[in-house]
């Protein structure tokens, strides 16, 4: 039931095709730093991620970053299945770290990419993942400049795990952070909620269903740069609501900043199909993961401008105003329900599970 997009590697250009062609899957030797490992670097990673820093193939990449403060972020990606409607672990690995840097107010520049592969993992799948990473990096305007590959024995890994770390240059004059939200701030979300999580659910064993839902996985740095360019200091807090969904992000900011957060459920943008899929499995869209959305806490006088800017951007077409920070009920997220009543939306304990009750 995996929606595998296989891009078979073109072995004709490989200098020593026999070992690789003879092994269409990953073997322990690929992680050994010897000939097989070098084959992978030379014929798979380098051509895909092509850039001068990488091609030096030193133990470390030597980079020019300009002056100013740096931001650094890292994340590991262990998603199952590896390929899902709208993307793969490859795009996630690149965009996830790019976005973490972007919401911190930094311009992402360079990424590292480390792979932990399971013995027996098909090379064709690795090639597809690497291709996806290269495309995502190009779209985001970042370079993958260093990396590593290790191989674990069959049965000791889920096919492929990826870690990416990234560095970026912080914009000067910004003081944005989860602790900087203030009562009165308007809360904006850049688009529809729950797309990624439900796309994964739709291909998850035991729960799968047919739908048009696709992951929203995307690099947000361009859109965020446009917002910061225009509104700068009026943006107090920014976050991308990944695992745990909007609810987790808003709770974190509320706690960090010591403000109350008040949202209107009627204003939350959710695709009808995502809504239906959530109903089917008994899930609440506010807790479902996103991989291409940002939440902004903006000074009220700048809110309309930022919203317009977001909507003008391809990734922000469905942007919406969803609520505000308040001095009431500090550190709590409260939502006005469709019924006109209020409910507290707490931090979820662990992953949200489908229910029958």
């Amino acid at each position, binding site marked *: 039931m995996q929606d595998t997009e296989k891009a078979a590697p073109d072995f004709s250009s490989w200098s020593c095709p026999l070992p690789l062609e003879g092994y269409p899957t990953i073997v322990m030797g690929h992680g050994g730093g010897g000939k097989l490992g070098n084959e992978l670097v030379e014929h798979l990673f380098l051509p895909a991620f092509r850039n001068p820093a990488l091609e030096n193939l030193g133990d470390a990449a030597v980079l020019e970053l300009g002056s100013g403060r740096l931001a650094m972020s890292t994340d590991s990606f262990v998603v199952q299945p590896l390929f899902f409607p709208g993307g793969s672990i490859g795009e996630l690995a690149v965009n996830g770290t790019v976005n973490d840097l972007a919401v911190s107010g930094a311009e992402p520049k360079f990424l590292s990419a480390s792979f932990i592969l399971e013995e027996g993992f098909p090379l064709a799948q690795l090639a597809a993942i690497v291709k996806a990473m290269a495309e995502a990096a190009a779209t985001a305007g970042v370079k993958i400049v260093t990396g590593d590959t290790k191989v674990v024995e069959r049965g000791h890994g889920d096919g492929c795990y990826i870690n990416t770390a990234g560095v970026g240059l912080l914009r000067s004059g910004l003081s944005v952070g989860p602790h900087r939200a203030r009562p009165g701030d308007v809360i904006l979300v850049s688009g529809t909620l729950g797309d990624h999580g439900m796309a994964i659910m*739709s291909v998850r064993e035991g729960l799968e*269903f*047919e*739908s*048009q*839902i696709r992951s929203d996985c995307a690099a947000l740095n361009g859109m965020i740069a446009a917002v910061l360019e225009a509104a700068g200091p009026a943006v107090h807090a920014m976050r991308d609501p990944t695992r745990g969904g909007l609810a987790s992000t808003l709770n974190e900011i509320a706690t960090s900043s010591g403000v109350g957060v008040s949202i209107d459920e009627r204003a939350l943008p959710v695709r*009808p*199909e995502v*809504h*239906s*899929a959530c*109903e*089917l499995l*008994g899930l609440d869209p506010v807790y479902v993961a996103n991989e291409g959305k940002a939440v902004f806490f903006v000074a009220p006088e700048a809110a309309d401008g930022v919203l317009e800017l977001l909507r003008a951007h391809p990734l922000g077409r469905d942007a919406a105003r969803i609520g505000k920070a308040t*001095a*009431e*009920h*500090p550190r709590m997220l*409260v939502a*006005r329900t469709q019924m*006109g*009543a*209020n*409910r*507290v939306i707490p931090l979820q304990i662990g992953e949200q599970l489908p*229910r*029958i*009750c």
Partner: protein
Amino acid sequence: MCLAIPGRVEEITSDGVIRMGRVNFGGVVKRVCLDYVPEVEVGDYTIVHVGFAISKIDEQTARETLDAFRAMGVLDEELASEEEVLARAAARPQSPCPDGSCSISPQVPEPAKN
């Protein structure tokens, strides 16, 4: 108990042992067992719990129920302004202890409200 949601039957098949179908829940389609609703045909709506249709939705009755709901309290609206009612309800926070017997320490209330 009982998360069951309404869906429209798109296709009916048999897997050799039981009557199965594809049911469309607002754009999401799932394979569902239709063995318990022999009267249901393609185009009908049914309520589905854990992959099983347990009842046909009587569409006529559904419409009548909705009409009855819509008619409720309509005359009274002339007496209280809509805004007043909505505002009052919206301002009321959620409280599980309407008689105030909760021993949980409450938040310090804010004196001024917009």
